[in-house]
């Protein structure tokens, strides 16, 4: 039982970690980033390359990959997405435009990864050592990823709720029209939020590469998972991400242990649909105007 719970928590932490960047990009910047998973895999490749080519510990690699994720996302927003933002008359129109643009982006990023690394599966071993926690044996790399996911999630939550910059990011999320009335540069703040999401997805990619097998084509799996967590938790809500991620992870692990591993996907979707039936805007979401 404890083992199932631990495993579920760690899996859930990973889901939350995957989704946090998307909730910022979608919730604040209103960019439905279909190339999100590709960026995650790109960060995983970067980590793989640093680890196998330069013997750089992935945890130290974070110090390089996270700023790179921030920078690349900022550039992407400035070059590709800002024209769409300026053109869009409504947020709905921006969502549609951004879906089209990032759909193209998805193939470009995938193409770059394919040409650099080929289509094969990649995996490496880092901190794949057992640690004993309350008498249960867990993999250290997963444990570290979980710890960092929770730490990053809480730090970000505090930053968003307790600081002026964080509050202004949330202001853009809830009402970009009103945000300009309090001297918020909405486009700049959106760019910042998008880039912050890029930094988060880069962190997720690095951490996940320590224990998951990936290939240039595996991005879409992560985009889907992130989308489910984001929608279930409430778009733009970090706590929602954390809670939804943990709920999915726990249910998956408990069902796999006590019922049947074959039902995990079904239970995940049942949970997802159940939440949306009761709260269409997600666990922590507020009704859309």
């Amino acid at each position, binding site marked *: 039982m404890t083992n199932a719970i631990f495993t579920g928590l760690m899996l859930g932490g990973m889901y939350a970690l995957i989704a946090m960047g998307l909730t910022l990009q979608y919730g604040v910047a209103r960019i439905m980033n279909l190339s999100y998973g590709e960026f995650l895999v790109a960060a995983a490749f970067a980590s793989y390359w640093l680890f196998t080519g330069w013997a750089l510990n992935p945890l130290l690699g974070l110090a390089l990959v996270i700023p790179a994720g921030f920078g690349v996302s900022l550039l992407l927003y400035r070059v590709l997405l800002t024209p769409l933002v300026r053109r869009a008359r409504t947020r709905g129109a921006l969502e549609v435009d951004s879906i089209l643009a990032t759909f193209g982006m998805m193939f470009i990023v995938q193409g770059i990864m394919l040409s650099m690394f080929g289509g094969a599966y990649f995996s490496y071993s880092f901190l794949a050592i057992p640690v004993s926690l309350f008498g249960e044996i867990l993999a250290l790399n997963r444990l570290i990823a979980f710890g960092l996911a929770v730490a990053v999630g809480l730090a970000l939550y505090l930053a968003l709720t307790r600081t002026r910059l964080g509050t202004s990011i949330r202001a853009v999320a*809830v009402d970009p029209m009103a945000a*300009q009335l309090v001297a*918020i540069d*909405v486009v700049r703040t959106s760019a910042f939020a998008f880039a912050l999401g890029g930094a988060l997805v880069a962190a997720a990619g690095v951490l996940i590469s320590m224990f998951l097998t990936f290939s240039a084509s595996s991005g879409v799996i992560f985009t889907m998972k992130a989308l489910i967590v984001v929608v279930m938790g409430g778009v733009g809500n970090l706590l929602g991400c954390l809670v939804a991620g943990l709920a999915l992870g726990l249910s998956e692990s408990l069902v796999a242990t006590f019922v049947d591993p074959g039902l995990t996907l079904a239970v995940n979707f049942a949970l997802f649909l159940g939440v949306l039936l009761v709260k269409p805007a997600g666990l922590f979401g*507020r009704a859309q105007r």
Partner: protein
Amino acid sequence: MLEVANIGVTYGQHHALTDASLSVGRGEIVVILGANGAGKTSLLKAIAGIVACLPGKRVTLSGRDIAGLPAHEIVEAGLALVPEGRGIFADLTVAENLLLGANPKRARDGEAARRERVLSLFPRLGERLGQTVRTMSGGEQQMVAIGRALMSNPDVLLLDEPSLGLSPLLVRELFASLRKVRESGVGLLLVEQNARESLAIADRGYLIENGKITGSGTGTELMSNDAVQRAYLGGIVASAL
């Protein structure tokens, strides 16, 4: 303080506002009266930089040219708008709305003192700092909207029909607060359909019809103006308030 000349707004082919000019002085309350669809909201939005205007306009604030600046920089220059429908962050708390109000750099110095002043102007907000704005009454939401705008340390405050949807008692309270705001030196440009109450506190006013400014005068002049009488005051000379 605020000088606006030859401002015009079109939506596609439709001219919503043509060649409007007006001014608001320091500590002055200026009212704009006009029927629905006359172009009042368009005028305020154009001044605040939220809708694009036709070329040729001039907007200066304390002598500084602010025409064509993006909306967030106009707030930074000292002009705050309380829009139609209030434009507050309904999903955030009162405290967060006030914090965001003080977001412009010009508002950082003396933020705490200004907050004190806002809370003494609207004591009810002080009791409900942690409440989500969405769950508050219309009058309270209007207080949040005005309080948030005041937090930006504006030189001129633009208000678009603040009395809409409020009970007569609340309207009176609201206008009393506005008078206090003016005492601190802030210029007020007030769009209203409630002519009686607004003219009573106004120093001056403008009439706007079909996108054009058709008349102006002091509050008392307008109150006795025939056209105003007919259109807004039901033909009865307002008794002195």
